[in-house]
């Protein structure tokens, strides 16, 4: 992907600088494979797609299933987002669906992935996210589509922070917003 350009590429240096204080780690994780799956969860096709993924499609709202470097996030009662590494073979998912009714769409470039991690990650996001981000409420294994500032996002908790998936056209806005929100966490505390 050397010749590709990711939506938040211009922010790499500022993300790095903001990550030096220890309170936060900000980074774009560019070029992840993202696949939107639509299928009846009760159908054999869903089961076959689960088999191809190596894990079942999660049916509980707001949950994810993670296996290795692939995450499957519930987006709706018949919609999931698969997030895998660059080069992930999503064509195998399409193959697993076959001719049956369903949808496997490459949306890798539709959103980019921002890592917001570090001890103050959840405090940072709470400036613009109305969800309860407390780790006991929104911990590993959860996911949510919601608003962060004025951008729609998918939030995926990670061990020490969260992944924020944002539409590519909103990425620069959200990066600016995150960096601005981080101002207070980057300097010595009051």
């Amino acid at each position: 992907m050397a010749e590709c350009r990711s939506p938040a590429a211009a922010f790499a240096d500022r993300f790095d600088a903001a990550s030096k204080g220890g309170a936060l780690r900000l980074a774009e994780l560019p070029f992840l494979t993202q696949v939107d799956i639509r299928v009846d969860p009760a159908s054999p096709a869903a089961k076959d797609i689960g088999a191809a993924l190596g894990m079942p499609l999660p049916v509980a709202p707001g949950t994810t299933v993670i296996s290795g470097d692939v995450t499957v996030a519930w987006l709706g009662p018949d919609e999931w987002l698969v997030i895998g590494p660059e080069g992930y073979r999503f064509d195998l998912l399409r193959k697993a669906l076959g001719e049956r009714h369903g949808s496997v769409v490459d949306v890798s470039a539709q959103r980019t992935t921002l890592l917001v991690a570090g001890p103050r990650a959840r405090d940072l996001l709470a400036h613009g996210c109305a969800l309860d981000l407390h780790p006991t409420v929104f911990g590993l294994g959860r996911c949510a589509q919601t608003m962060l500032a004025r951008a729609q996002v998918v939030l995926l908790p990670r061990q020490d922070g969260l992944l924020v998936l944002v539409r590519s056209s909103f990425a620069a806005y959200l990066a600016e917003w995150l960096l601005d929100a981080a101002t207070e966490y980057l300097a010595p505390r009051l």
Partner: protein
Amino acid sequence: MMLLIPCPWCGPRDEAEFHYGGQAHVAYPENPAALSDEEWARYLFFRDNPKGAFAERWSHSAGCRRWFNALRDTATNEIHAVYRVGEPRPVTS
């Protein structure tokens, strides 16, 4: 305002995540061509506006993008019930 609306899928979320869809249970007519102008206008333009319990449609547009129905008291904003599309309007006291 700033309601907490219980999405039947995602659970309670701020109203800012939702899109209002007006009165529920106003079905698209089976055969519009068979309707008189007046009947068609009634479908297009006429909606109830009660004070009290009102069955209305909402879409969790910033979340799971599902449409659902809610029984909301228009005077107090209390949401007595939410139910998925296709489910009957719950009976409330």
